[in-house]
């Protein structure tokens, strides 16, 4: 097994999940993950593999031109989903779609660094890896994560509350 095979098997799932959560698109996430492993191939040595992979993936996502293009597609897709929801109001599907939409809104409301740190932590990166990937001081990771978690939960709950109120109003 080549080294990149090992890297892929060890980290692809976590990397794709991280990127999916980050980007909101599984295909795009897989594409970026693959590109990340291709870049890993070109490296003679990587000190902290996981931190390196997540850092490179994060940087790839930051490619602005690319991001802009994708964003437009993403918006188009969101619009399409909205239309789909309107014609297919199946309850569980709608519920899940609402949850996902609120989660997306809540995560998007975070500052970029907070968001990335949180997503990386969710994939099991330790504080030093997060610090390395995001070029933070190791001591600030705890503060970053605590802020990210609090804000995420609070904004999600606020969205949930307003959603419930809308439903209540619609019902009455």
């Amino acid at each position: 097994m080549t080294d990149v095979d090992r890297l892929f098997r060890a980290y692809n799932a976590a990397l794709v999940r991280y990127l999916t959560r980050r980007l909101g698109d599984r295909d795009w996430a897989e594409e970026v993950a693959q590109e990340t492993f291709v870049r890993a191939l070109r490296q003679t040595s990587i000190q902290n593999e996981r931190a390196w992979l997540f850092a490179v993936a994060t940087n790839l996502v930051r490619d602005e031109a690319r991001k802009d293009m994708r964003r437009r597609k993403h918006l188009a897709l969101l619009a399409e989903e909205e239309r789909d929801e309107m014609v297919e109001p199946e309850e569980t599907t709608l519920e899940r779609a609402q949850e996902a939409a609120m989660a997306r809104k809540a995560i998007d409301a975070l500052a970029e660094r907070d968001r990335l740190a949180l997503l990386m932590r969710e994939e099991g990166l330790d504080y030093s890896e997060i610090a390395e990937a995001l070029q933070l001081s190791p001591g600030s990771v705890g503060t970053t994560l605590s802020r990210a978690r609090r804000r995420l939960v609070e904004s999600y709950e606020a969205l949930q509350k307003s959603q419930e109120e809308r439903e209540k109003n619609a019902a009455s």
Partner: protein
Amino acid sequence: MQHPDEGTIHSWLDGALSADEAARIETHVKECPQCAVAVAEARGFIAASSRILTALDNAPRGVIPAAAPKKRIDPMVWRVAATVLVVAAGTFVVVRDRGGSEIPMSVAADRGILLEKRASLPELAPSAIGPAQSVADAAAPKAAASKTPAIGTARKTMVGDSSSGVASRDNNAITSAGVMMRAGKSAAAPGYAGGAAPNAPTPLAPSGVTGGVAMDATNESEPLKLVGTRQRAGVKVTLYEIAPGDTVTLTEAKPISLTGAVVTSAGVVPMAAQAAGKSVVLQSKARADTAAITTGTDSQRTNRFLSAPAVSAPAPISQEGRANTLRVVSWTDPGTGNTLTLTGRMSEARLQEIKIRIERERAAAAAKKSP
């Protein structure tokens, strides 16, 4: 000990503190209710944020354009495209059985117009006619072609095929296509006294009923019923309904475009398996996009018609299927100098009779215009 800040509590819970630090926090939290609350809250945030992030895992695919297109093209688009394609190339014929069953037929020669006649929707009920007719339609022209290869025109039939819209193409094939028209009959149809039998929604009778019923019952004093007209390149094509389902085509060509537009007998062969009702060949240099001439809620019915189930099994060509000779009467309009060509599947005498009626109506219309 000083109360640990939120970041430190998270670091502790994440296992990111050194053993010494962790032990100190642990001791403090046990003794400090305020920090115990903060720790409980932090645990809640950690668990809740994990849960929230899980909701992001069902991300859609296909946002990336390089991936396969997510949406299939609406089948209706294909239907419309097929219709346009066929209409662009073809001329059609309506075959109609006046005896009880209705058979839309299509034969093409050159270019065409899509026509749909009749306004009585119930007759189009799929159970009654749709698929069965499709079978007949698919098979009849093909068989006719093989019997009379001298026809010299290509035919492409179009049946109610939801996927392709084109069911068969014979070998003589040229480039044309036909779209079938329905010219049904109904007891309620105006000006038709002979068809009072309640046979409108009857499915096809395979044995066929010979058509060619004389038009005695038709009220000749009534004005000819105009089904549709279209005009292109100096040629005006008018379809008249003589009686319900019985139509003739009047082609009016200005002298300048005479050679390209005048319709001549296309030698239409027997097509209908069952009915040998009167039919009309309608030819024009029609363009596809504007080719639909229909009456009533035309587009809907046309679509429905075109989307009838595809039937590939050929229908037996019945010997009762009688040839309807297409007759043509041409004359020059004294008023305009245009060449008028009347085409229909009926006797010459009958065609002459209609010609006279048309002339009379044209004269009346001209008089009205310029009193």
